Structures are given as C-alpha cells and as structure tokens.
C-alpha cells in the first residue's frame, strides 16, 4: 500500500470466517467497498466432464454431491431429465414421495442458509438454532431414505424406498416441535431489532434489476417476481398440491430472509398435505417392475425397497436431449442431458441457481460498507460447490 493509492484491495476468502469456498476481491476505500469481483472455482471438480465417463446410474450420487445441503433437488432434476430421455414418468405414489423428500430438503437447505446468514451478522445463537432445527429435518430424511444428506433416493422411474412404518406420526411430532422452535427463532433472531437494523435496506435488488440479471429463487421472489418452477412448470406431485409462493417487494437482505421463513412455513404445509393425500400403488414404474425377476419383484412389493438387477447398470438410453428443471432450495435448477444412445451421457450441463446468482456479487456489493459484505453475501444463500460444479 503506497501512500499515493487511495484504495486497498482486500482478498475476502477463501480463508475468511464468512467467505465459504470462494474469494471476493474487494476494492475498499476506507470502510466502503467500491468494487467486488468474485473469484470462484475453488471447488471445481469437473462434474460435467466426469459425468461423460460414468453410466447414467453412477451419475446420480455424483450430482447430488455438488450441493450437499440441497441434494434431493439435484437428484430430482437429474432424474427428471433422464426420465424425459427414457420417455417414462414415475407412478403417482413415487411422485408424492419425491415431493415429500424435496420439501424436507428445502426446509433443511433454507435453514442452512439462514443459520449462516445469522452468524454473518454476529448472532451465533441464530446459527446454532437454525442448525439444530435443520437436524430435525435431517432426521426425518434419514428415516425416509436411510441417509443424512446424500439420499440418492430418487431413481429413474420412481423412488428407492417406500415410507417406513409410523413415518407420518413421526413427521407430525417433529413438525409440531419444529413449529414451536421456529416461533422462538423468530423472537430471538428474525424480529430482533439489531437484525432488522443490520439487514433492512441492505443489498437492495430492485425488480427490474432482478429480471435483467436473471437471478433465481428466493432472491428473485424477494424482489417481487412471482416465479416458482413448482408453479410454472409443475413436476413431481406439485400439480395436485396447494401452496403459496412467498413474495416480497423490498428486495433487500431482510426480505430474502423473510421469504425463506415463509417458504419454510409453506413447505411444512406441503409435507402435511403429501402425507394426507399419499396415494396407494407402486413406487416404481411398471416398465421396470416388469423387468425384475419374480423373486425380486415380490421382495420389492413386500418390503418397499427397490433393488435393481445388474442389467440396469449398463442401461442404454435413447438418443435425444432431456431437460429437467426444478425449484431447488436456492432457485431454478436446470439439468440439460444429451444422450447419443450409449450407456453413458454424451454431455451433461448443469445450470445451478448459485451460478446464476453469481452475477449479483458485482452488482450488489458496490458502494456498501465492508460490514455489509457478509450480510449481503450470505443473504444470497450462495453455495460455492454448487456454482463451481
């Protein structure tokens, strides 16, 4: 820093308490940020290239590992793209179960974002409570799928397991507890005057700007655009489910937080609906049920656990392209899958919500205080491994 230069450059990450797996290069004049340039790629693992070297089934566990807080949606979007290529659609019960897991996961994902948002402005209790609440959802997901966060639950043509016995009662018990704790969280963190002072009017993204930049998810809805893939291109069981889209007009960090809270409430509603309306039937598409040997078929129908014979590992997929789009926790997630008729994908392009929100860094972090950088950054719920792929 020579005496002539007025500004200093701060490397905000990758080793920084609030940066996550990325770096923002900040140009700072005193305590004011003039320019921010995100430098990502610290978690780039080449998933798109690796997918070309794995069979269609092997890709499932890999894609969900790019965004662990939100694995179910990645799983779902990939399977939707694959099902489009295969020309099948899962039976209704499987669709409902997919929705159930997706919503459980959405709550977990939002709480993850809220917790980190809380600690970014100094409330360690908000972090702990959000993560504690998230554990409820992870326990439910574990009961449903057998895994804490990497489910691989959704498979082409259905889901991997039926719901276990007594699951609905468990869910109801947990949800009641969850709602009570959410009210406590609201008192302590969300309506805390200091939280409001820190987040209101910070990082404002007007509606026009949001549309122009093509942002997604809660960030978009907090700016007043009522766009939710669950509503506009319904997938899984969403056509039959009644829910509201959380929209806020303000477009600041606080509005993003409130949109997430509202979406959590809606998700709880959806979970209750799903468990109430859960139809009977198979959890795997007929075409695959037919392929199973008789003893395995009996096993699947009796226990509700799907086991695939080895034939599926080398499953050939018809030529063409499939697009799967879902509303993931962080926003619209698109899988673009191209097949050339082999047993491995020819090309897989993942357009992740975090990557599409990346553009906001240079737009929102401009002419703000250094102290506002974490308050803005974490309000976007940006998850770098998802953006880097």
């Amino acid at each position, binding site marked *: 820093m020579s005496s002539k230069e007025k500004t200093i450059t701060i490397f905000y990450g990758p080793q920084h308490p609030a940066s996550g797996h990325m770096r923002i290069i900040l140009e700072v004049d005193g305590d004011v940020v003039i320019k921010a340039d995100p430098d990502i790629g610290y978690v780039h693992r*080449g998933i798109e290239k690796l997918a070309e070297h794995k069979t269609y089934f092997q890709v499932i566990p890999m894609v969900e590992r790019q965004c662990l807080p939100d694995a179910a949606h990645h799983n779902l979007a990939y399977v939707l793209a694959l099902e489009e290529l295969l020309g099948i659609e899962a039976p209704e019960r499987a669709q409902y179960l997919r929705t159930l897991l997706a919503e459980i996961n959405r709550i977990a994902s939002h709480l993850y974002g809220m917790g980190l948002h809380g600690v970014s402005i100094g409330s360690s209790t908000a972090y702990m409570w959000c993560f504690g609440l998230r554990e409820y959802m992870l326990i439910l997901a574990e009961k449903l799928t057998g895994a804490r966060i990497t489910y691989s639950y959704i498979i082409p043509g259905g889901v991997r397991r039926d719901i276990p016995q007594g699951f609905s009662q468990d869910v109801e018990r947990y949800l009641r507890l969850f709602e009570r704790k959410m009210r406590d969280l609201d008192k302590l963190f969300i309506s805390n005057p200091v939280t409001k002072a820190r987040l209101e009017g910070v990082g404002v993204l007007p509606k026009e700007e949001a549309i122009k930049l093509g942002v997604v998810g809660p960030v978009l809805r907090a700016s007043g655009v009522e766009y939710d893939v669950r509503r506009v291109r319904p997938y899984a069981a969403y056509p039959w489910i009644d829910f509201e889209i959380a929209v806020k007009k303000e477009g600041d960090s606080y509005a993003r937080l409130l949109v997430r809270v509202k979406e959590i409430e809606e998700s709880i509603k959806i979970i209750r609906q799903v468990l109430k309306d859960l139809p009977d039937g198979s959890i795997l598409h007929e075409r695959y049920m037919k392929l199973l040997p008789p003893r395995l078929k009996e096993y699947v129908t009796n226990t509700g656990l799907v086991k695939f014979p080895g034939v599926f590992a080398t499953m050939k997929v018809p030529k063409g392209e499939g697009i799967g789009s879902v509303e993931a926790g962080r926003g619209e997630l698109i899988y673009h899958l191209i097949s050339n008729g082999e047993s491995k994908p020819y090309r897989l392009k993942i357009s992740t919500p975090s990557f599409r929100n990346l553009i906001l860094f240079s737009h929102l972090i401009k002419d703000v205080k250094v102290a506002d950088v974490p308050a803005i950054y974490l309000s976007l719920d940006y998850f770098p491994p998802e953006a880097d792929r």
Partner: protein
Amino acid sequence: MMKYIRRIFRALVLKTPIKRLLGWSVAYSIWPVHMVTSCCGVEFAAMADPLFDSERTGLLPFTSPRQTDAIILEGSLSRKMARAVRLVYEQMQEPKYVISMGACSMDGGVFYNSYNLIRAREVLPVDFYVPGCPPRPEGVIRSIVLLQKKIKEGKGLE
C-alpha cells in the same frame, strides 16, 4: 529409594509432568481454522450444532490462521484450493495438525479421475483421515478425540 530417584530423575530430566501438561493443554484446545475446502463443509458446520456439539472437546473453530492450530480439510481439494490450503498451513503456528475429512480428500471419492482434484496427502502432512462421503459429524468428532489421544502421547510436541 531407587523409586524416588527415578521419579525425581523423570521429573527433572525427562520432564514428563511438563510434557503431560503440555499434551493435555494442546490436546484439549484444538482450534481449527475457518477454511472450507469443499462440500463436506456442510457436515463440518453441522458438527458444531446442538445435536453434535463439537465444543465439548474444546474445539473452537476460529477465524485467522495465525491463532489456530488445526486444519480440517473438508472434502475434495481442487488445484486452486490446494494452493490456498498450503498457504494457510504455512501461516499457522506450531504445533499444528491436519485432519482430512471425506473420501474425496483421501482418494477422490465419487470424483475419482477428476482433472482438477489433488489428494490431500500431496499437499499437507495429514494426521487423520475420516472416511465417508460425507462423513457423519460423529465421525469427525471421533477423529478429533483420537487426535487428542495422539497428542497426549506426544505427537507434534517435540
């Protein structure tokens, strides 16, 4: 008589009580640096939450590499990140320990063959590997307890 002499000798020359005190203090005050290398960071974050509460072991995730003495590699290590990790490791004070978390940092895990990953052991001297993809928080806490045992036996205190 010999017993006492030996005890005095041990206390004065080998300094075992002091060493034990050092081992005890270093073992129960592992402060890992805030350095999230990849997606296992989600489970690392969950490790501090009320259900698992890693603070019981004296673990306190801390901000700057200067004050910390452990680095937990959460998952895969990309080429870009490996440089940063090495830099952070160099900045830390001795004694320092490395825990490598997840299958990716061991050998690639599901990202085996990837063009942008390198293994943790090529960058840092790893003390503990925690298997799993991702490892459960209990697993990581267990690795910390084991590391404490190792420290109490004198690892890194020479």
